[in-house]
């Protein structure tokens, strides 16, 4: 009997390693992202403990550098982006009425490459050379002269691997959204989360090449003696800043747009009203995407680009606040007059709106170069971007987690614990980051590992540290909630929130093929229309007929494949070879080519019986 048990476990493990099911890949993304989110959070807590009182000696200056570098890198690339990716994976096909993504195996490949890149960066801790150059890795601190160890190598190669993953996912989701929509789902009938994800994917595929090039130049500088960032040869370290921020600013919208999409789904559901001015919200998202490419130099006002460039980027930055303001107005308009149910997903969305607005306001402040010169590199900026990335992205993503958890797991999260989580997180978040505005304005610089007692910074630093511990407590509550409700939570049923979009029309968790009968779409809120009509006396839209066993037997789902996993491993072998030996690069490179060939040829001819 133990033998069969082991075989069964092995079978389950193998089925996850070779899965090409978008829902399983979504779960893999989500759980990996949560683990890295906890790691990044622990790094933050250690930094806050170090800064709790003046002249503290909990960690050294070097460790502190490593902590803030890895905290930023982890939270952006290993937590928020894959959290968003888990929603893209799980929800996009459900929201557009599809059975899978356009390229299921490529999807699995994205995940395995992401995981190998994430493990690669974090492996630096084991070798005692964690990256210490900041998440922005400014040249020429990153040169071999100033960073002689492998710390920057781990960071730069790891980001390169993660970039491959993000771009592959971007190609996949753009094609999925354009090409896999159910009949009748015109672009303007796409749910808002689909729209915001769509814009995000374009940002991903167009912004990542810039950082790819920046990292390639850095790699050549460090390994092959080129002079791109070497001032001694006339090289300009500002080249890095430009290339990095041409990526880096769209990246900010890559982090926030999916959360905006989630909020735009949650608010109509819990206000029981369609999204107010949905086309405005959609076009604002598109406008944010376009403007996102034209504001990068506002990260560089202090480098002295001259008044013309400063003015242009300042105006563009203030303009981008307009579509963002439009969205906030529309969200509030959605709540106005709605029959609101204050369930935990809605609370997190409301938290998002309030916190993100505050972060947006401080953002407009340093859109002005003279103001920015006062604030740059102080804790004011730290406060600002945590209000948009934590107060924005994380609140939005957790709104999505509470909203879609019952769809994914078939059980509801506990409402009381959810509310505890929300209020602890909201209070802890504001205690941590609001005082940092004050600290920045009285002159506390970023990235310092300690400070003298007579500077008057200790009170707000202590408040901030206590706040960060409250945030940590809120996530303990979340984990308790997950563990508690995983087995004994209230069964959700297909439609626990009286939802509006297609994912609520199918069982929770959805069957492997999602939709037994392909839905036909008449409206953005299709499922609501099926249940209630248009609210103006129109008849409810027709529901898909009940599926027969023959319908289900006729569904072909893509077969599992181990090539995505093997190919991702080969890429990891090749890239890590740069730190080991040339032979490993060559072996890894040949292995990668071989795996790509096998990957491409796997379904060159459909298997017998599947001839189409």
């Amino acid at each position: 009997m133990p033998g069969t048990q082991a075989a069964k476990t092995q079978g389950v493990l193998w089925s996850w390693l070779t899965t090409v099911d978008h829902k399983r890949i979504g779960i893999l993304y989500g759980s990996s992202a949560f683990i890295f989110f906890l790691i990044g959070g622990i790094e933050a807590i250690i930094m806050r403990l170090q800064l709790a009182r003046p002249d503290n000696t909990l960690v050294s200056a070097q460790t502190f550098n490593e902590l803030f570098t890895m905290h930023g890198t982890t939270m952006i690339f290993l937590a928020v982006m894959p959290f968003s990716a888990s929603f893209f994976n799980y929800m996009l096909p459900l929201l557009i009425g599809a059975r899978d993504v356009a390229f299921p195996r490529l999807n699995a490949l994205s995940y395995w490459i992401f995981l190998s890149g994430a493990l690669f960066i974090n492996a630096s801790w084991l070798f005692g050379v964690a990256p210490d150059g900041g998440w922005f890795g400014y040249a020429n601190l990153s040169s071999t002269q100033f960073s002689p160890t492998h710390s920057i190598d781990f960071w730069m190669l790891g980001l390169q691997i993660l970039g491959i993953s993000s771009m592959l996912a971007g190609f996949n989701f753009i094609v999925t959204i354009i090409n896999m929509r159910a009949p009748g789902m015109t672009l303007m009938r796409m749910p808002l989360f689909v729209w915001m994800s769509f814009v995000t994917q374009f940002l991903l595929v167009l912004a990542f090449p810039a950082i790819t090039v920046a990292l390639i130049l850095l790699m050549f500088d460090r390994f092959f003696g080129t002079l791109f960032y070497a001032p001694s040869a006339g090289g300009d370290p500002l080249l890095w800043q430009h290339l990095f921020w041409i990526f880096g600013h769209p990246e900010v919208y890559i982090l926030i747009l999916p959360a905006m999409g989630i909020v735009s789904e949650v608010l109509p559901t819990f206000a029981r009203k369609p999204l107010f001015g949905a086309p405005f919200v959609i076009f604002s998202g598109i406008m944010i995407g376009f403007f996102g490419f034209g504001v990068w130099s506002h990260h560089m006002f202090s480098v002295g680009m001259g008044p013309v460039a400063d003015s242009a980027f300042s105006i563009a930055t203030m303009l981008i606040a307009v579509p963002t303001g439009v969205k906030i107005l529309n969200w509030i308009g959605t709540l106005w007059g709605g029959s609101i149910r204050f369930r935990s997903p809605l609370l997190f969305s409301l938290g998002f709106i309030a916190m993100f607005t505050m972060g947006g306001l401080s953002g407009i402040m340093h859109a002005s170069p003279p103001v920015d010169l006062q604030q740059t590199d102080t804790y004011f900026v730290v406060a600002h971007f945590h209000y948009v990335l934590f107060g924005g992205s994380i609140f939005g993503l957790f709104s999505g987690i509470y909203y879609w958890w019952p769809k994914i797991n078939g059980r509801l999260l506990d409402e009381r614990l959810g509310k505890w989580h929300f209020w602890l997180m909201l209070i802890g978040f504001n205690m941590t980051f609001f005082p940092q505005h004050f600290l920045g304005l009285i002159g506390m610089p970023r990235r310092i590992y300690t400070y003298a007692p007579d500077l008057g910074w200790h009170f707000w630093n202590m408040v901030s540290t206590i706040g960060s511990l409250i945030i940590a407590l809120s996530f303990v509550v979340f984990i308790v909630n997950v563990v508690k409700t995983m087995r004994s939570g209230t069964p959700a049923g297909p439609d626990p929130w009286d939802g509006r979009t297609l994912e609520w029309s199918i069982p929770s968790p959805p069957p492997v093929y999602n939709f037994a009968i392909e839905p036909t779409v008449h409206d953005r809120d299709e499922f609501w229309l099926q249940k209630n009509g248009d609210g103006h006396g129109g008849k409810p839209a027709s529901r898909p007929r009940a599926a027969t066993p023959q319908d289900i037997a006729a569904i072909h789902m893509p077969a599992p494949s181990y090539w995505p996993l093997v190919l991702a491993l080969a890429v990891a072998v090749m890239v890590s070879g740069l730190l080991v030996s040339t032979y490993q690069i060559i072996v890894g490179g040949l292995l990668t080519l071989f795996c790509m060939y096998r990957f491409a040829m796997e379904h060159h001819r459909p298997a017998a019986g599947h001839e189409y």
Partner: protein
Amino acid sequence: MADHTATHAIHDPNIGTTGLDHRKMGMWIFLGSDCMFFGSLIGTYLAYKGKSLSGPGPHDVFNIPLTSYSAALLLASSLFMVLALTRLNEDRIKAAAFWLFATAAFGLHFVLNQVYEFTTFALDEGLTLSTSLFGSSFFVLTGFHGAHVTGGVLWLSILMVLALRGKLDRRDYTKVEIAGLYWHFVDIVWIAIFTIVYLIP
């Protein structure tokens, strides 16, 4: 026959609800992304143009006749690519394989010219990756283009071998077409690089 093609369209997992092919659309999006990649590299080259502190300059080393010949090779290979696709569509597999071979061979010739060019720059002119900003930005930009061509040559060679072994026919039109899209793109990028780097003084 008409019935057969109709069921074809419904069940082909590569065709989406818009009637467009996933793979072809994916390739176009990849090419858009690759535009940004080469755009960043060309931007870097232009930003550093004339900023080198030492070493030979562009027009001390360039062999314009040789590079023009290379450019002609790539342009001609794009024509061969079109012919390969046409022959495949006519189900003339041997002819398609021949034109795939010609495309890959001209591409390979281009790469070998580049190897020769790089070698003479390094040995005769004393220009390497670490000589000057010009050396760094020139070799990295043109080198990454060369790597793209090399990848294309491999891809086309595999398609040719498949064709010769009877594993490629009309049904694989889209597969060859997207290889062609990639190939033409690499060709167009070369026109940009040739003009910006080699021809403009």
